[in-house]
């Protein structure tokens, strides 16, 4: 609803010429652009406005003001373009006296349209369970893996199978890599990477016996943890190890990533949760969350809140900006699996029951949003991105549950496109690689990159001071080989030593010379002030005054 000022003026002129036109049309009642609500603007506002009072020069000041104007304009445009997001997330409204808790999947299936109803299905795979399941980032493909080796990748909406293999080994965890063309499987001893046809591409022999995998899509890092307490990052774009930390915290079978800053969160049997970055070899943060072992950890998509559950039958929500507890709930038993959806709904698997809580971070929960009961224990949960679907891997296979309002309604095709064609996928892959974020930028504070490295100034000075000490150059000298009988091995070694010694002596000489010179200069200066250095016995000398 834009009202261009140009048009208005033209209209006015036309009206002006025509004296008989009704007066109410002469003026535009809504001149200028349609106003953007402030609340909407605040959503896109990034921090406080610039304090532009001072700048080094006048034109510098002008530049700052110009820049600030542009930023405001960008915010306004962003807020305005929200109109283009036409889709709305799904929802359930219970009648008075009813609650959504009692709504079963069959109720939803009956009520929903066919396409939605088709999203609830059950794969009965009793042979190789319990199963783990994971969706791709665009939510189009599904990867399931039974712990007894059955791995299958499929387009879950059309049920078209990409590949189905049996790796003939225990499968501990699975993870899609950046796209549906590759996935990693943590097997009995090593981690393998397969392509979408089930062909083995790589075998990662580090770490041994990985328990959990986590993929950081923007950094192209595959993080894996193992039973001996090692946390390992691999750059899958170049196939090189980035870091490997010995956490020394025992078996690491509880892991999740903070999607906001790519920090890895680990849960420990000591009731604590630790956060790790590949750049620091100690936990960035270690917080005591439970009185007993932590069973599962999940971080919400904004990276502001963390949910933990422990053996002490509690589920806690933490604000990980301040590292403070927000809510604590007694749940029937410790949730073995938790996961956040894009809209911030929390899926929780305890025993054979799957519970979903709506917005557990910002409000106090009274009852679950939905409950689903399974025949066997839940082994894995994952919300499908951009769909109102929760995938549950369990002992008897895989179940896809419809959870209204779980998925983000509007997708950004530049970011992840559920309707991607093959060509687009290839393009996106190249784009992703170009946009790859270096590992060094993983930091607890994701805005760190926009800050001035102030401390480094002091450090630079210190470093500069350190340069005083010259280190003798290391000399590598290979003596010339002499014919048989001309030089013994001993002689050769002696020659070598001699050369090295000579070199060293030279540097020492230089050093001494430098120091002497410095000393001479210093003495010259000091000699004006103090005539002679005072010896111990000088005090007994007679002074003239």
């Amino acid at each position, binding site marked *: 609803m834009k009202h261009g000022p140009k048009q208005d003026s033209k209209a006015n002129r036309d009206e002006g010429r025509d004296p008989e036109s009704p007066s109410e049309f002469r003026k535009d009642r809504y001149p200028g652009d349609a106003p953007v609500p402030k609340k909407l603007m605040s959503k896109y506002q990034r921090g406080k406005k*610039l304090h532009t009072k001072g700048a080094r020069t006048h034109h510098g000041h002008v530049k*700052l003001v110009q820049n600030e104007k*542009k930023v405001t304009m960008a915010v306004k445009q962003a807020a305005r373009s929200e109109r283009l997001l036409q889709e709305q997330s799904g929802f359930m409204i219970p009648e008075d006296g009813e609650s959504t808790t009692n709504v079963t999947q069959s109720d939803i299936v009956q009520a929903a349209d066919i396409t939605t109803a088709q999203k609830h299905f059950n794969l009965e795979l009793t042979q190789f369970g319990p199963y783990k399941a994971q969706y791709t980032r665009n939510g189009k493909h599904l990867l399931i893996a039974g712990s*007894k080796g059955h791995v299958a990748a499929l387009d879950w909406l059309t049920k078209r199978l990409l590949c189905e293999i049996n790796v003939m080994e225990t499968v501990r965890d699975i993870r899609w890599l950046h796209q549906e063309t590759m996935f990693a499987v943590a097997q009995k001893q090593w981690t393998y990477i397969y392509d979408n046809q089930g062909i083995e591409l790589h075998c990662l022999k580090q770490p041994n016996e990985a328990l959990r995998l986590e993929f950081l899509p923007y950094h192209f890092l595959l993080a894996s943890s193992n039973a001996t307490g090692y946390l390992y990052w691999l750059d899958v774009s170049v196939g090189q190890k980035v870091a490997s930390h010995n956490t020394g915290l025992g078996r690491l079978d509880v892991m999740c990533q903070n999607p906001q800053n790519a920090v890895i969160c680990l849960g420990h049997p000591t009731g604590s949760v630790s956060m790790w970055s590949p750049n620091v070899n100690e936990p960035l943060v270690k917080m005591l969350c439970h009185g007993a072992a932590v069973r599962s950890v999940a971080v919400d998509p904004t990276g502001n809140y963390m949910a933990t559950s422990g053996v*002490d039958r509690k589920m806690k929500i933490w604000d990980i900006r301040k590292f403070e507890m927000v809510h604590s*709930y007694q749940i029937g*038993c410790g949730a073995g699996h938790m996961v956040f959806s894009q809209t911030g709904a929390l899926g929780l698997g305890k025993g054979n029951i799957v519970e979903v809580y709506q917005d557990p971070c910002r409000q106090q929960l*009274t009852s679950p949003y939905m409950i689903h009961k399974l025949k066997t224990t839940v082994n894995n949960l994952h919300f499908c991105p951009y769909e109102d679907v929760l995938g549950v891997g369990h002992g008897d296979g895989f179940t896809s549950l419809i959870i209204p309002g779980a998925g983000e309604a509007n997708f950004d095709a530049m970011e992840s496109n559920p309707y991607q064609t093959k060509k687009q996928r290839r393009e996106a892959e190249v784009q992703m690689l170009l946009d790859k974020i270096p590992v*060094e930028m993983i930091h607890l504070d994701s805005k760190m990159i926009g800050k001035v490295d102030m401390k480094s100034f002091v450090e630079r000075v210190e470093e500069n001071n350190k340069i005083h000490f010259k280190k003798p150059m290391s000399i590598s000298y290979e003596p010339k080989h002499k014919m048989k009988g001309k030089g013994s091995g001993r002689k050769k070694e002696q020659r070598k030593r001699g050369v090295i010694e000579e070199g060293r002596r030279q540097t020492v000489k230089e050093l001494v010379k430098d120091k002497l010179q410095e000393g001479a200069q210093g003495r010259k200066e000091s000699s004006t002030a103090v005539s002679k250095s005072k010896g111990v016995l000088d005090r007994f000398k007679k002074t003239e005054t």
Partner: protein
Amino acid sequence: MMEDEEDLINAPSASEDEDDDKRHAKLLDAISGLGGKKVNKRSQRTVPTNQVSEFNFTAATDDTKVKLHELVGTLKTSAKHGSLKNQLNRVQNQKVLSVPLPKHQKEKIEREVAYKNTSKEVSKWDSVVNSNRQAEQLQFPLQKSEVHLLNTTGKFKQLKPRTPLELEIAAVLSGNSDVLPTENNELTPAEERALAAMDLEEAKERRAELQKFRALMSYKEAKAKRQKRIKSKKYHRVLKKEKLKHEKKALEELEKNDPAAYQEKVEDVERQRIEERMSLKHRGGSKYSKKQMLYAKYDDQARQKVQDMLQTSRQLTQKSVAVSDSEDDEEEAMDSEDEMIERELSSLSSNPWMKVAAQPVAKSEFSRPEVVLNSEGKEEEESDSECDEDEDVLMKMGRELEKRQKKPVHAHLVEEEMEKIIQKQGDQRQEKEKSVKASGKGVKNSQNQKNKTQNMKKAAPKVEENIDEIFQKLEDKAPDDRKKVEENVKRDTENKKKKKRRRGKKKMEDQDNEAENAEDMNDAPLISEGLKRKKTLDDLEEDEEEEESISGRSSMMAKRETEITNNGSFTEDSPNPKEEVFVDPKKLFTLETKISDIANPEVTGRDGEEEESDGEEAQRSIIAQAFADDDVIDEFVKEKNAIVDRDKPTDIDLFLPGWGAWGGESVKVSKKKRKKFIIKAPEGPPRKDKRLGNVIISEKKDKAISKHQVNDLPFPYVTVEQYEQAIRAPIGKTWNPETAVKELVKPKIITKLGGIIQPISKADVFKKDSKKRKPDMGFQNKSADTKHKKRKH
């Protein structure tokens, strides 16, 4: 200019000289007067007479200098002394230069003046420079050359016929009726004539026809282009087949019409066949085909390609021409045909085999030529065998594929083993889960949700009993020293806690402060700081009692109420000495939590075993749970303390035992002395986790990121905060709409590729300025400009 300067220089100095002289004379007078001697003054004649004594002339003193014009004045009137007058005139006109200034002074003055002038000159550009600096975007070249379209007529007007040929052509053209006489005319004279001669309908018809032709031509062109661009293999295959068909037909026709040409064609085909059989290009002879065969194992497309290649090789190696009337022919005919082919082949000098083979065929039994020149049937057999080979390759691939698919079937056999392994690995986990399940053991399996809450209530008292028992047992064993430690710590933290308490509870706290102190927790100080509420075990009990009293599912409000009542009960019960010791650690985690009204579905394992697990196990798990916290918290506090100590800057101890005093084994050094020699390290900044008891935040600096950070404050910014604010907003496409991005990343300077950038011409700028108009080059920010000027003054 120069003259002016000299004036400036000379004028003041000349006057100064005069003054000086006068003063000098005065001074001399005064000095002579000092001596007391009388200086005979010249007598001044007051009476003007014509006769002037010649002795009375004296040297003119300073004040009565004789001026030249006074002497010469009379000359004007007289007509004599012409030459003298001329001389005088010359002298008068000649200017006498004053003494030049010393060089350094002169230069200094010159510099000053030069600076003034240049700065004045340069400052004219200030406004231009400023506006260019402040402009959001500059487009170079700044002066936009006038753009005008070149039309052909204008261009051709310049051309004039020069060479004889051109002249001739020009002559022809000028006289031709098919050339436009002037630009304004639409039709040439010839056309006009034709139009005049033509009937209207006829003209229309003709035009339509022409149009049709043109359209057809363009269609055809477009079609050809499109076909050329098609990438589909299938399409091309079909196209090829069609082409082949046509060729076949053409060949047949050729056979009838032009046997010689036909023969040639046949020979060509034959050569191709021979070449194929020699090189086996399509059957693994070439690198490409070898590779494809290798890939064919995995890739469907490659398999298809291999098949295609085999097909082509088969086609090529077929005896196409000879076959044409093959099998029904009689043997004689075949013989003759064979001979013919032999002849043909022998004529092919390129094939050495053929040459050799051609003659001995009839006589010797040399096998090789036989094979080569075999009769039809054999050839077919051979090709069959070849086919078999091909099929073999394919079969192999197929088998391998089958194997892969069969793998899962084999897997069933291994399954049991696998299960065992998995069970072993999962044992640890199951044990954990067992403990959890056991806790809910009292809860019976039922599908009714209403029953659940009741069940929960039943379970609760059991838990209470268990816990009570545990505490009873533990009470006896509890170590005494621990109590002491607790008390010590408690005293320190008392005050802090008070602050943390909620306002609503303040009153109650005041009442039972003492009681609380008595039963305060041991390791609480650090950890409890981060937590919100504190309750005791009693509270839990009370909670459950309350829950029992409230029927059905209690609402949030009801829960809040229970909490409040709990607090009341807490005050009453707390003095009980029994609970004092053991309750403390629990407060931290297990009991502080708010128990929300979540409808808790009971945990039901699929197998009944877990449900039947006996009470003992449950008890054990509860014990474990009850005291798990204890160790956990202790350990954590220890760890934190260790880390805090580690990160503290260390003191420097310079104490040398035995220095300035007696030393030895049994000699005690006074603390005071020792203290003297310890240099205390400055206290570092407060830890980030200072206020968070349950959190350890690493103080290690992440140096990795500093590589990507800015080290120095960039130019126009004054403070770091200002800079950080300025770059707070992202400019990428990911975060901004397209229009905004374009604006945000607008380049500061745009240059036309290959365009010459001329320096700003003075004439352009100041001409426009003089007209009081904005110059057309970068003067976008005039208001800012004026502001700047104001500031300057």
